């Protein structure tokens, strides 16, 4: 409503985004839309700093599109854009992170399409909350791992290993591998 939009629209974000913003527990801050943004800002800042963070699942899902959009702004519009720099200033209150964003994270995604982040679900954790009249109260937490792609850590999800030990499977996979190698060699010789 307020002001004229000048810049061209941004591409869509390749991440699931619900059509209703979810309420987040804000831990002490009076619950409001402002508090929700503050929680998300802390998560985004932490993710940019650490590149892989373990969060409650719903928070990770909610913070992911914000992180995506921030990276997308850097990729599409660059650091000199007014809107981008305003958003970066607010979402990354630690100034070294803005430098990191523009010089480390954004160059990774110059020729890539969204999504720029990954989200994995870890097994739920059961934690004891308190003991009331010898009654133990436990709570279950869904845990997610949010990470920026291309980070230096080992992958969260291992590649699918060849599980089978049967001779037929072993022979077939070797034959396929040899076939690929010979194809590669043929291509190389034809290129020369």
């Amino acid at each position: 409503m307020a002001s004229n939009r000048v810049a061209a629209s941004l591409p869509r974000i390749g991440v699931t985004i619900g059509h209703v913003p979810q309420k987040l527990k804000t831990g002490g801050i009076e619950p409001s839309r402002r508090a929700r943004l503050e929680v998300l800002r802390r998560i985004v800042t932490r993710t940019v700093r650490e590149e892989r963070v373990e969060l409650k699942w719903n928070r990770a899902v909610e913070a992911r599109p914000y992180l995506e959009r921030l990276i997308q702004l850097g990729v599409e519009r660059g650091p000199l854009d007014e809107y981008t720099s305003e958003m970066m200033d607010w979402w990354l209150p630690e100034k070294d992170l803005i430098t990191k964003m523009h010089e480390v994270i954004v160059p990774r995604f110059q020729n890539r399409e969204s999504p720029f982040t990954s989200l994995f679900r870890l097994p739920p954790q059961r934690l004891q909350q308190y003991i009331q009249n010898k009654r133990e109260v436990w709570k279950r937490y869904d845990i997610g791992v949010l990470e920026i792609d291309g980070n230096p850590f080992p992958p969260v999800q291992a590649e699918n290993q060849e599980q089978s030990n049967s001779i037929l499977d072993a022979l077939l996979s070797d034959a396929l591998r040899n076939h690929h190698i010979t194809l590669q060699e043929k291509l190389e010789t034809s290129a020369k």
Partner: protein
Amino acid sequence: MFRPAAREVVKLPTRFFSCKSEPTRAAPAKKSTRKELAGLIPAFPEIYPDFLQSPVWNRRNALKEELERQDMLERRMNIDIPEFYVGSIVAVTSSDRNLGSKEHRFVGICIRREKEGLLHQFTLRNTIENIGVEVMYDLYNPTIKKIETLKLEKRLDSDLTYLVDALPEYSTFDFHMEPQAHPAGTPIPVNEVKVKLKNPPWTRRWEILSYRGIEDTWTQATPWFKRKLHKTLVNDYEKYDLIANYRTGSTKEQEVFVQEQMQKFEKERHAAGLTRRRILKSAASHK
């Protein structure tokens, strides 16, 4: 030839995830499509708000949009709908069988453009005999004979509803105004006039809605309003909610899709030799 390989078996912990989220491999490196496609307009959502999708996600229906778009393009082949913005001065000639001249011409400043698709509306405002008059037109109403942009410009805001509470001089325009040509290829001028409002009470609380085109609402407000404003939440931080904007806005992919469809439609009609009218055009990006 057979090359037996030492089958290195590295046991990495494999875990099966039950989530639908895309892991890293789901985002393969693609060739960048960031180059600007030829003939596409960067300011498309402003010039063609009627071709955008609904801001409410569950009202977006691809088939409905497609059918409506075809009707809109057909209509645009029959009537020249010029480029205009909120803040431009527009003249609309519509047929009216009850008048002697059988047609009615209204000139005014465009204060609103709302709704998508065939139901797109725009509102013109003018002061006639010291009475403010607002006329809401359906853009695709078949009784509209002619739409002219007399002065192509923007204001600081994309909604000028507050002119209803402004002094009448800000919404008074001459009915015999000469059309001012906009030099092609130059950016659309922004009229940075700041409007003075009448004394409150107003129809809406303009002072808290962060309009840029209103001059100093705070000093004009009466003490009663100031006390009320004091209790009100100030929502300055809402502009930082990146995804709230995304939820209601349009995406580049959709805009490119619609523009390519419009170009194709134009090309077909031109090839058939029926018309030379152009639908997709922009004064600012004209070459």
